[in-house]
């Protein structure tokens, strides 16, 4: 069934439509939540909260076509609050100790398999939330500036500026991979 039809049915209170939309979006949202939060536990909590809010507030969605950006917006707002909450509960220095370990294999071990993945993941996680959110939507969701701006409720100019800053930081973090630090000064100059 078409997504917009499912949304229409959900607005009419059809739980089966909600279940179908859950199936369509569960992994997309979980992956976004993981990339933006960096913790599998947090990611599931964020997605759970997102779907609950989606069900409870679907009546506030004016156009069925706007469902996806609306859903993503809920996800990012929820993620922002969850990350802030986690920072209050677990100081930064202890975050590394919380590795979601099971049988000696951490969730990170299951997801990140190569050195390259580890490097990119670390570089993305080193960004602050607003830059990380733009990076995930741009690189992972392959969304346009306009779509990202809609989700974040800001202007395209702000998205461009955040993406530029994020890319600059990512480039710096990933610089050694490109051939060492001696070219770094030149690259900085190019960017200026």
């Amino acid at each position, binding site marked *: 069934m078409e997504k917009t039809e499912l949304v229409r049915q959900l607005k009419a209170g059809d739980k089966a439509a909600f279940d179908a939309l859950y199936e369509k979006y569960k992994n997309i949202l979980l*992956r976004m939540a993981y990339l933006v939060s960096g913790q599998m536990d947090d*990611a599931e909590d964020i997605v759970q909260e997102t779907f*609950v809010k989606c069900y*409870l507030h679907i009546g506030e969605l004016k156009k069925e076509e706007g469902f996806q950006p609306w859903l993503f917006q809920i996800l990012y707002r929820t993620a922002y609050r969850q990350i802030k909450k986690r920072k209050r509960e677990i100081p930064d220095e202890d975050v590394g100790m919380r590795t979601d370990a099971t049988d000696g294999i951490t969730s990170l071990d299951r997801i990140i398999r190569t050195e390259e993945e580890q490097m*990119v*993941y670390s570089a*993305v996680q080193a960004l602050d939330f607003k830059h990380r959110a733009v990076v995930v939507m741009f690189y*992972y969701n*392959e969304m346009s500036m306009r779509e990202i701006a809609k989700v974040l409720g800001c202007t395209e100019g702000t998205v461009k500026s955040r993406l530029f800053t994020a890319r600059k930081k990512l480039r710096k973090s990933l610089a050694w991979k490109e051939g060492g630090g001696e070219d770094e000064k030149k690259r900085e100059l*190019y960017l200026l």
Partner: protein
Amino acid sequence: MKKSVNFIFCKKRKEWDRMDAEIAEVLGSMSKRIEASKELKGRIDNRLGTFMKEERSMSRFNMKKVAIGVAAACLLAGMVCIAGTGIKSYTGSTSVRADYENFTDLAKAEEKVGYRIDAVETFSNGFVLDGGIRISDEVVRNQAGQKEETQKGINLKYRKGEDDVLFLVRKLYSCESEAMMFEYSAWDKVEQENGITFYYSRDTYKTVPDDYEITEEDKAGMESGKLQIAYDGGQDTEVQQAYYVGWIKDGKVYSINGFDLSISADEMLGMAKEVAGCGN
């Protein structure tokens, strides 16, 4: 010089593109290893189940709870506003001064709210209109605090000796149904006449200071619907008996409410039947 600049930009562009492609590829391949657990859907459904239960529960309680709250605001505190809380919140506000002083102005009030109501000027047990007719602005909000529906209600205040009662009328909201509102089972007396069901209850209404901590006993009372707690910002706890009789007729929600009254359940039910049987 121009060539050199172009070369630098081209080189930079290629590096950016390479980095973009690499990040996109890495994030994409990493993400494919992430799958939602089976437990996740169960947790979401449990949460939704709890909300839906609360919503039904709120709907059951709201008719009485909100009416008593409005009556408390008008009769006890002389205030103008009261809200029910829960998944949906109901707010009714009126002006301190009556909109119309005399019963003969009821038609004007009906015109203002947009619907006609059943009402009497004097009850056969001696309660008389004393305090005029007020128009209330009623709002139902969702959990996010957004307005879902608005309407105007009509309130009439009656007196007999030391007893004051408030007669409230409003229309059913679209989120309410007659069946849902009367699922609530803790009524003290339920009677039917001419196809209308009248629900009577006498509950405890406890006004508490802002720092009051709800006890287990309170929780049990609130859960059963026999206790209503109101925070009034005062210093003391005051306990009163809230009297309520409610019914629905022609899509309108009627109730007569009072506190520490000296009248019996049958007398209150009689007042309700008197109103319901006298459509003007």
